[in-house]
Every structure is written in C-alpha cells, then in structure tokens.
C-alpha cells in the first residue's frame, strides 16, 4: 500500500491505496467521482481524460501514486456555482454528444486544447482529438462545439 495525497477539484484528499491503483480507479472508486469513464483497456479512447497539474492526460495510464502531490481536475470540477463551463455549454448547444459516454473525456481534452492553441481551425481540432474516440456522433458536432467554445468559426 502507498499513502497518497493530492488536490482534486480544489479539495485536498488522501488515502492508502494499493500500489497498482490507476488514477482513474482512485477517482472513481475511492473518491466516487464517476464522471470520469473507462472506455477501453488499451489507452486509446480518452474517456478517462482528466487534468493533472493543468495538463490533459489519460487517467487510465497513470498510477494514482504518480499523481501524489498533484493538482487534479475532473469533469465534476468544471462547472462553477451551478453554471456550466463554456465548453460544456457549447457541447449542449451544438449537440456534441449522443450517448454521452465519451463526453467527459472529450470536454476535458477540449478545455486543454483551447488553453494550448490560440488559433483553432477545424483541421487542428480534429488532429487534437486524436486520443479521444466517440462511437456515436461521427465527431462533426463535437468539432463544431469546440470551435464555438474557442470562439473560432466552425
């Protein structure tokens, strides 16, 4: 067992976890924040994306112990005072989801993309979504939502 502590969505948390605990399992099973999803076994789908120290990463491909001391943000941390984050709002407005399984990861990735890339055209958005898989939407409205949230033209 390893003792870990980190800040998750602004709250300090600590726990003793089995060494092999993945960050996503810590978030879901220990903190009961189930917005972060597991969509694959192979680090391909991006349903598990959270921010660690301000960078979007796949929480299924990081040990909880590696995040010891870090600042973590999950999908639950985005909305402020009952008001959706602009990227969440854009996904709703532009119908950027169908079943919604990929959506938490898509949105956490989108927030990261918009933070990193000042000018976002459609091609860049599609390239940046390389690590996020959606089996429903065909991506079109996801791209539209991100472009709208970024203030770019879709």
């Amino acid at each position, binding site marked *: 067992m390893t003792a870990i502590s980190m800040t998750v969505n602004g709250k300090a948390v600590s726990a003793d976890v089995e*060494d*092999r605990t993945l960050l996503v399992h810590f978030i879901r099973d220990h903190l009961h924040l189930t917005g972060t999803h597991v969509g694959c076994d*192979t*680090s391909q789908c991006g349903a598990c994306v959270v921010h660690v120290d301000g960078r979007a990463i*796949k929480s299924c*491909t*990081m040990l909880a*112990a*590696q995040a010891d001391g870090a600042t973590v943000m999950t999908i639950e941390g985005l909305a402020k005072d009952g008001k959706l984050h602009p990227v969440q709002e854009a996904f709703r407005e532009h119908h950027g989801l169908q079943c919604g399984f990929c959506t938490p990861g898509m949105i956490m990735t989108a927030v990261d993309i918009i933070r990193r890339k000042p000018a976002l055209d459609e091609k860049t958005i599609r390239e940046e979504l*390389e690590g996020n898989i959606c089996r429903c939407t065909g991506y079109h409205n996801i791209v539209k939502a991100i472009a709208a949230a970024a203030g770019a033209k879709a």
Partner: protein
Amino acid sequence: MYSFTYRRPASLAEAQKLFEGASDPKFLAGGQTLLPTMKQRLNAPSDVIDLGKIAELRGIAKSEGGLTIGAMTKHFEVATSADVKAVIPALAELAEGIGDPLVRHMGTIGGSVANNDPAADYPAAVLGLGATITTSKRAIKADEFFKGMFETALEPNEIIKSFAFPKPEKAAYMKFPNPASRYAMVGVFVARTAGGVRVAVTGAGPCVFRVPEMEAALAKSFTPDAVASIKVPAGDLNSDLHGSAEYRAHLVTVMAKRAVAAAG
C-alpha cells in the same frame, strides 16, 4: 494488472539501489507503454521504480553545437520548447507527431528510446542525427545503441540520463502513419550535419536502421531526386495486415524524398 511494489526514488543512485534489491524490477518513465502492457498482463514486474521525481533527468539545454535533452523530458516539452524549435525544428515537429496530445503530456524521450519499439518515432531522430546517449554508466553513440526489436545496448540497471543532439544544417522527419493506430508504418529522418548526411528509417523493419546508399547519394546532391530511384531491399522489412514488406520498401523511398524536400 498484477500487483507490484511502487517505488519513487529521489536520485539516480537511489533508483539503482532499489533496482539491485528487487527480484524483477522495471523503471517507469512516462508509463505510456509500460502501463498499457502491464494492464494487458504482458509485463508483470515485481517493483515499479518511478523516475518521475529525479530532477537531474529533466530539462532542455542549448549546448555547444546542439541540444542536450534530459531523458525524462516529455514529448510536449520538446514539441513546444523555443530552444528545440530554434536549434532542431525537425525534432520539435517529430515530438508533436507522437501518439496523441494526452500521451505527449506523459510520455518521455528516454522511455521511448529505451523501449525501442520498432514503430516509435524518437529512435529515428536519435539515429538520424547521430545523437550521443549518456547513461548512468557511460556515453553510447546512437550507432551502437539500437540492437534489434525492443533491444538496446542498455544493461538491466542502466538508466538513460540525457541525449546530446548535434545541430544539423538541415533536417526533417516524414512519417506515413498507420491510419488506425497512427504509429509509423514508415518514418524517415534525414539530416545533414557537419559529420555528413544520415538517413534513419523507423517502422519499416524490426529496428530503426540507416540507409547508406541514400546517405551517399544525398552527400553528392541533397535533393529529392537523388534518392528517388534508391530502393531498400524488402527482404528484411515487416509484413503484417497493415502492409507488405514490398509496400513498406516503397514507402521508405517516398518518405525519404519528402523528408529531403521538407529539409530544403
């Protein structure tokens, strides 16, 4: 994933001591290959020794004639570094094309090179630029480092500390990504340095390799036409459901031409 003991040393010396004392240990760099293989139970180390908190393994520095990049430097750090963009733009572009943005936020240059996946991008740059690999024990030339599929000159308890890349006069990397996995079906790194022209190919064979015939032709005339009629033999290349060895051999020439054109 099978159980293991997680260790997080603060220094290289401590990391090596932990390694000595464990029955079947593995070093953890960015974890973007190791953790997926452990999840698939293809890897079951007794101890995972995380190099993530060892400060001396990180960072990018301009040095006499080139760049020194710490082994635990992440792909996104190389891709966005002003120094890398200024000294070896081809290396920044290569880093920007690895995996996806999420993987680039975790994966490290040292982890990628130590793993030596036959389809990884970084080995092409290390061999193509003729970098020197400094480890916890010694300095190894790129030409002596890559030994075969997932095989390198590294001894079990030898840790890569940094890479010294010479500044090329011209360089470019072109890859043909597999449409599904985005791994390189074929990637070609071409560089003209003070030491001559080097052409390194990844993805095509069991291990990154140089193409001396192309290097000789480019030394005479650094133009796409110079390599247009040079074919690598298909015999040693990979054949799988994504493409035959003949197809990969063809792609090597095409990617080499494009890389030379991009290097200008």
